[in-house]
């Protein structure tokens, strides 16, 4: 049973993003600001930092591919970015103290980097004509605030869950 818990958790986050976007009240969107939930990315970063790094990267790869195929129909963007950012955060954390506040900040930075890279790539393939200043105003800042709220609420439960997971891996 424990074995299936982790994939189920990630599938849940994967679905939660779509449900979140769909059921947010329209008024919040009509105010022009776009809030992008990045719960999956945050969960992956926490898994790489608290659980097992290699497992984190594998989950990043699998769910990146799933995200591309199901939600965007452009394969490659998230397939590359999820593992890349997970790897980068794990490297950064080697230099820093593994404190929950520090990790929260690092994962927020990871989300910021992800948003920025996705914007640059979408701009590059001509799927948007948003200029950078508009992107910062309308998307970047609101998205970071939303994800900061998510991190504050879920950081501790995620940390505990993944630490247990790491212990069970060691016990085996």
């Amino acid at each position: 049973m424990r074995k299936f818990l982790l994939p189920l958790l990630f599938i849940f986050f994967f679905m939660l993003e779509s449900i979140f976007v769909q059921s947010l009240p329209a008024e919040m969107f009509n105010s022009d600001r776009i809030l992008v939930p990045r719960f999956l990315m945050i969960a992956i970063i926490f898994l790489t930092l608290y659980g097992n790094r290699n497992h984190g990267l594998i989950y990043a790869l699998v769910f990146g591919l799933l995200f591309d195929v199901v939600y965007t129909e452009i394969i490659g963007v998230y397939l590359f970015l999820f593992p890349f950012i997970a790897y980068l955060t794990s490297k950064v954390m080697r230099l820093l103290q593994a404190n929950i506040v520090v990790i929260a900040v690092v994962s927020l930075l990871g989300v910021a980097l992800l948003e920025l890279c996705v914007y640059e790539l979408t701009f590059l393939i001509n799927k948007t004509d948003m200029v950078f200043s508009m992107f910062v105003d309308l998307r970047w800042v609101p998205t970071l605030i939303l994800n900061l709220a998510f991190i504050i609420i879920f950081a501790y439960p995620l940390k505990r869950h993944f630490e247990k997971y790491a212990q069970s891996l060691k016990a085996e």
Partner: protein
Amino acid sequence: MPQFFLNKRLIFLLVSIIILVALIGFSLREREELTVPEQFLKDATGWIQNVFAKPQGYVTDFFENVKDLQNTYSENKELKSRLDKLAKLEADVQQLEKENEELREILGEKESLRDYEPIQATVIGRNPDRWHEIIIINKGEVNGIEQNMAVVSSNGYLIGKVKSTQQFTATIQLLSAMDPTNRISAEIKGNEEYFGTIEGYDVDRELLKLKRIPYDAKVEKQQKVVTSGLGGIFPQNLSIGEVVDVEPDEFGLNQTAYVKPGANFYNIRNVMVVKRVMDQPNLSDMVDDEEEEL
């Protein structure tokens, strides 16, 4: 030794960037249909999304109901005032419809561009990153959905077209997506009818751009915009929205109208996929040798 490891990582990064570019290039091609593994993945996740969509629907419906209750009184008042007019309108419509049918019979024309068969569907997913405005519905090829069909919101306004289909789910691209290949032949209703194509969406003002209207057309504000059915796939007379602004285009040869879409692109729960009854013309019939293909 560390130098060597660094190099290995660098090479790995470069190789993965090359793969990234190749994959993006592969998926940006105009694809008739998705590859089989992609279809399988989408159907499999669609099944899970279906499971999530039901309870989610109940919850959002509940909150919407509560919201509706709050302004029942004022709404009721307005509806009552309209009800009187409705009876007369209905009688008129019936008479006109009958007349239309009779006239058609005389002409011997049975099918019309207007006729369509609606397929009801529920939205089970939406792209969270919102760069590509994509929604996923719970009906697919087995229900008769095909690529490029028109999709209409529950209040009857055009919201997009089918981007790709799987066996049990389909992906819909909304009108608000920025895609240069997403063109819809449209018509401005008025004393005189003008034709143009919907090309693109102004994110800033949340308006659709209706381009290629003749320069001498007298388009006024609040005129209704509907599909013309001349694009070959959409039926005629699906409402799109109304004109809010008209500008001459950059070269002054045409005009561009800004159209306020009638559909809300955000809270979409149920949609109708519209299947045109009349046959699609073959592309080869439409393209003359002298004319350039767009």
